[in-house]
C-alpha cells in the first residue's frame, strides 16, 4: 500500500525552491503509529524549546496543542467507533457480559468478543501542523511585514523582523501561531512551523517528513499530493473506512491549505474548524461601521457647538 501510486519526495533531494514549485504536506492518520518522531525531529532541527514536562491526562498526548514552541503536534483520539472493518472485542471497560470473559478460558473470549460484546473502539493519531493557508490570516494581519510567502508557497515568519505585536495570534483561524513567552529563547516573537524553509533551500525535505517512518507525513508537489490524497480517501472508503475524508477547506475564504489532512470522522474532533475563514473578510463591514461612527461624531460635535453655545 505504502509507496504505491504517486511517489512522495520524502527520501529524495529536490529543487522546488529554485523552480518556484508549490509544495505541501499531506498527513494521513490511517498509517500514523503515533511515534511522535515528527515532533522530536522538528524540535531537534529547528532548536525549538520543550513543551514542558507535564502529564495532560489526554490519552498519550502530553504535547497539548500547536503553539510558539510546538510546530508539530501528534493528536491521540480515542473514539467509541470502529476503524474500517476492524473487529472489536471486550477490550473496553467492564460491560457486564465482558467481565466473565476476562477471567474465563481462551475460547470464551473469542465467543463473547465476536458475538455479543459490541464495544467499538478506535484509536486515531494525526500529526497536526501549520496549514500554510492559501489566504493566510497571520500574513495579512502582520503589521511589520515579518510574515511572508515563500517561493514554495509556504508562510514564513522572519524572526529578526517580528516585534511581537501579537496580532497574528488572534488572526489565525486555526490557532497555530503564538507569541513565545519569557524566559524561553527568542522570547517575545511570534513563532510557528517554517516548513523547514532552510532545509528546502538546500534541496532537503522538511525534518518531520524526512523522519516519518510510515510516510504518514508526505512532502511533495502540492498538485501531486492533492491527487495522492484523493486516491487515498477512495482507497480507504473501499476498505470500509466510510468516514474518511480530506480536510482542505477550499470552499471557504481560506481557499485551501498547503498542509492538508486526511481525517476519519468530523474535523471538530481534531480541533479543526469546520469552516475556517480568513479574518480579512470582516474588514469591510467593520471599517464601514468605523467610518460611519467617525462621520457621526464629527457631525454631532459640530451640531453641539453650533446650537448649544
Amino acid at each position, binding site marked *: 500500500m505504502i509507496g504505491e501510486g504517486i511517489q512522495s519526495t520524502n527520501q529524495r533531494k529536490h529543487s522546488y525552491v529554485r523552480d518556484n514549485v508549490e509544495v505541501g504536506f499531506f498527513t494521513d492518520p490511517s498509517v500514523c503509529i503515533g511515534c511522535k518522531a515528527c515532533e522530536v525531529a522538528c524540535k531537534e532541527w529547528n532548536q525549538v524549546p520543550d513543551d514542558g514536562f507535564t502529564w*495532560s*491526562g*489526554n*490519552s498519550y*498526548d502530553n504535547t*497539548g*496543542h500547536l*503553539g510558539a514552541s510546538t510546530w508539530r503536534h501528534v493528536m491521540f*483520539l480515542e*473514539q467509541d467507533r470502529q476503524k474500517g472493518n476492524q473487529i472489536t472485542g471486550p477490550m*473496553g*471497560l*467492564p460491560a457486564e457480559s465482558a467481565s466473565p470473559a476476562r477471567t474465563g478460558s481462551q475460547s470464551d473470549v473469542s465467543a463473547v468478543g465476536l458475538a455479543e460484546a459490541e464495544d467499538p*473502539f478506535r484509536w486515531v493519531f494525526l500529526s497536526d501542523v501549520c496549514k500554510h493557508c492559501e489566504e493566510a*490570516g497571520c500574513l*495579512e*494581519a502582520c*503589521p*511589520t*511585514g*515579518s510574515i511572508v510567502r515563500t517561493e514554495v508557497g509556504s508562510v514564513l515568519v522572519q524572526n529578526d*523582523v*517580528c*516585534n*511581537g*505585536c501579537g496580532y497574528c*495570534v488572534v*488572526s*489565525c483561524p*486555526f*490557532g497555530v501561531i503564538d*507569541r513565545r513567552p519569557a524566559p524561553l529563547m527568542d522570547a517575545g*516573537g*511570534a513563532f510557528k512551523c517554517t516548513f523547514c524553509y532552510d532545509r528546502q533551500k538546500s534541496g532537503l525535505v522538511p525534518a518531520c517528513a524526512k523522519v516519518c517512518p510510515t510516510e504518514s507525513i508526505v512532502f511533495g508537489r502540492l498538485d501531486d499530493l492533492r491527487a495522492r490524497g484523493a486516491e487515498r480517501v477512495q482507497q480507504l472508503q473501499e476498505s470500509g473506512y466510510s468516514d474518511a475524508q480530506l480536510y482542505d477547506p477550499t470552499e471557504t475564504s481560506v481557499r485551501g491549505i498547503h498542509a492538508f489532512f486526511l481525517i476519519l470522522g468530523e474535523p*471538530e*474532533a*481534531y*480541533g*479543526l*474548524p*469546520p*469552516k*475556517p*475563514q480568513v*479574518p*480579512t473578510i470582516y*474588514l469591510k463591514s*467593520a*471599517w464601514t*461601521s*468605523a467610518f460611519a461612527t467617525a*462621520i457621526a*461624531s*464629527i457631525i454631532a*460635535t459640530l451640531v*453641539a*457647538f*453650533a446650537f*448649544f*453655545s
Partner: protein
Amino acid sequence: MTSDSPSEKRLEELREQAWQEGVVPGKGVDVTGGPIPRKPGYYGQPVVKPPVWTWEIPIYFFIGGLSGMSAVIASAAVLFHHVDLARTAMWLGAIGVILSSILLIMDLGRPLLFINMLRVFKHQSAMSMGVWILSMFGACVVPGLIALELHAHQVFGDTIDQLLRIAAGILIFGSAFFGTLLATYTGVLIGATAIPAWFLHRVFLPIHFGTAGLGSAAGLLELLGHRLAALNALGYYAAAVESALLIWLSVDKHGMADRAIHEHSSGWLIRIGEILTGPLALILRFFGLVPFAAISFLIGALVSRFGWIAVGKVSGSDPESVFAAERY
C-alpha cells in the same frame, strides 16, 4: 499491588463513574481524557488562540479614543471661537498620543523593534493602519498644540504669528481627521480577527469605541472646568448612543458562538461599562449632576474596554464558540 487494595478499588470506582458520566469531578481527577473523551473538540483544547494582550491594550483603547476625539472637539472649538477649550483639548490630544505610544510599545513582545511597524503600509491589516493613523495623529496634534500655544501667547511678531495661526488651523483639523479614525479603528482591530465574540460584533465595536471616546473627551474637558452647553450636549449624545448600544448588545445574541459575552463573568465588565456610560450617565446628566455623569462615563468607558479584551480571551479559549460561529 493486589487487585483488592484500596487504591485499585478507588480506581475501579473512578473508571465506572467515568464510563457512566463522562466527567469525574474532583481535584487531580481528569478521567475525561480516559477511554472516551467527552469534552468538546479535541479534549476541550482551544481551536483559535486567545489574545496575548495584557492591560496595556485596554488602557490604550481608552486613552487613544479619548485623545482622538479631543482633537475633534478642539477643531469645533476653534471654529466657534472657544480658544481656551481648544487649547485644553489639544493638550489632552498631545498627552494622550504620547501615552498611547508608550503603552503600545510596552505591549510588544520585543519593544526595541517597534520601529519595524513603519516598514510597511498594509491596508488589509487593521494593526498596520492603526499604527499609521496613530503616527499621523501624533504628527498633527503635537505640532498643532505647539503652534496653537505659541499663537495664543503671542510669542512672535506679526508675520510669523499669522503663519503660526494658519499652521495651527491646518494641524488641528488634520488631528481631528486622524483622531476620529484613531478612536474608531480599535473596533476594527479586534473585530477583524478569528475570535468569535469579537468578529460577530464587528459592526458594534467601532460604534461603541468611537462614541465612548467622544463621551470621554467631553466628560474629561468638563471635569477640567470647561462647563459649556455644547460639551453637555455631546455628553447627552454619547450617553444616548451607549444606551442604545446596551440594548443592541442584549438583543444581538448568537447563542453558543458569543456566549462569552452573555454567559461569562467577563461579559459583566462590558455590561457594567455600558450601564455606566449609557443610562447612568444619562440620568446623572438629566439631574444636572454633570461632574458625576462625566466620571461615570469615564469609568464605564475604561471598564468596558477591559471587558472586551477579557471576553476575547474567554471566547478564544472556547472551542465550542468557534464551531458554533462557523456554523452560523
